[in-house]
């Protein structure tokens, strides 16, 4: 059952990766990166259930924090330049 859920989340991440590689402007790529980071947070929660280890929840929290920081910094870069 968990394998099916992990497969669904990986398919979703790969579909978003298509938009990340193709996206016409920088903002499209940043949106795709945001969606991918949140999908990986959900994937890490499912992996924590699959391996029965609560450590992956901390990894998910830190990964979400880093994804949010990356998105915000790219938003500032789009708005004002370096």
């Amino acid at each position, binding site marked *: 059952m968990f394998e099916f*859920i992990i497969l669904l*989340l990986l398919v979703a991440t790969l579909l*978003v990766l298509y938009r990340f590689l193709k996206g016409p402007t920088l903002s499209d790529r940043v949106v795709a990166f*945001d969606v991918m980071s949140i999908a990986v947070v959900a994937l890490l*929660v499912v992996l924590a259930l699959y391996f029965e280890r609560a450590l992956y929840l901390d990894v*998910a*929290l830190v990964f*979400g924090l880093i994804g949010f920081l990356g*998105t915000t910094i790219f938003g500032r870069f789009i708005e004002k330049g370096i």
Partner: protein
Amino acid sequence: MLEYLGFGFIILGALAFIVSAIGLIRMPDLYTRIHIGTKATTIGTLLVLIGASILEPTWSWKLALLAAFILLTNPLSSSVIARATRKKESL
């Protein structure tokens, strides 16, 4: 019985992620992409977290912290991207 409920929530969340990915590919405009890329992933993550806390009730505090974090940061990042793009376009 409770196990099937948890798995149902997690599968609904994963389907919300699939819907978000398809929308992100098929939507014609940047702002509609931001729309589908924020709301669908927020509800998907929350459904996955609810299902996980049903399956493992001892992890509920960490999962609630993660849910609060997602609810705080996800609209903020989409708002930052939309505002920056709008300002850059209006120059």
